[in-house]
């Protein structure tokens, strides 16, 4: 069993499970997992995870849509107001001979409805603090590549 193929197949297993592979890749995965015990075992695990994914409540779409559309009516006016404000400030600035660096300046003064994801502040309980949970965030790409290879060897080799 070529371990090179194992690496390729393991990447493709999720798409295989949800039936999103093209003909060539489909053939590769099918023939590989019929011969390779480790990859077949991984396929079965991924299949189980997919099969047990949580059901989404049937009325979720409707209730979210209703709330969001109600809110939009306000947001829409705020967008209009923001555009108007920016235009008014620019006109005023021209009128009194001030140049603005960028029209975006006005937008920065509009508070609270723009959402920026603060990168790095998403995970407040670092996984590194959980017993037995490795943190991969500070590793270089090279170290990560070695690690992923190692994970693959351990899994395929069944030394656990």
């Amino acid at each position, binding site marked *: 069993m070529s371990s090179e193929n194992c690496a390729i197949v*393991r990447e493709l297993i*999720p*798409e295989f499970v949800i039936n*999103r592979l093209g003909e060539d890749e489909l053939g590769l995965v099918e023939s590989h997992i019929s011969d390779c015990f480790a990859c077949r*075992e*991984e396929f079965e*695990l*991924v299949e*189980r*995870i*997919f*099969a*047990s*994914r*949580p059901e*989404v*409540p049937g009325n*979720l*779409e409707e*209730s*979210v*849509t209703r*709330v*969001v*559309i109600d*809110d*939009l009516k306000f*947001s*829409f006016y705020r*967008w209009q107001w923001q555009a108007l404000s920016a235009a008014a400030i620019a006109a005023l600035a021209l009128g009194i001979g001030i140049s603005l660096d960028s029209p975006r300046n006005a937008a920065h003064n509009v508070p609270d*409805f*723009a*959402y*920026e*994801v*603060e*990168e*790095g502040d*998403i*995970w*407040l*309980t670092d*996984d590194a603090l*959980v017993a*037995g*949970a*490795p*943190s*991969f*965030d500070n*590793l270089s*790409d090279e170290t*990560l*590549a070695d690690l*992923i290879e190692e*994970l*693959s060897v*351990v*899994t395929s080799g069944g030394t*656990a």
Partner: protein
Amino acid sequence: MRKNERECPELTDRELIGRGVKGDEVALGVLVRRHQAAAYRVALSLMQGDDMARDVVQDSFLKAFRALDRFRGDASFRTWLLTITANEARGALRRQARRNETAFEEAGVVRSEKMAPDETALVALEADRARTMMENLPEKQRLSLSLRIEEGLSFREIGRVIGSSEGAARANYFHAIRRLRELMK
């Protein structure tokens, strides 16, 4: 005359956003329909309580839509929404934990009740077992697994959602796979 998107599913998210910014309610409804399930599963993966997850999905769409005019196209709308959802879920958990020190234990009880195994089918039993073990993985591993398998995200997209590099997302995924395979034996 506004077209109902149920009749024109070919519209891309970007086109829908363009319409949504101009106040097109139908376009926004279609975005909700397309992405609510993924957002719900991400929220549930982090918090385990149905009601809380619903609130988080609602708040995430609100925040995303309020900022729609500032959405930058360097990520897909889905990745952006799921990033907001993960962030909102964590914020909600933090607030709940502040109110109630035992919140996490309660979430654990809800989890096991929800996962009552089907007594007839062995396959379903094994699936439930995998799910229960998955829920005990550290957050980033759990979410990497869920985003890759249930939502079909690439490792690059997963990295954005969990605030890590593509390589770290891949390492989280394969580490989780190895851990589950060991546990399932």
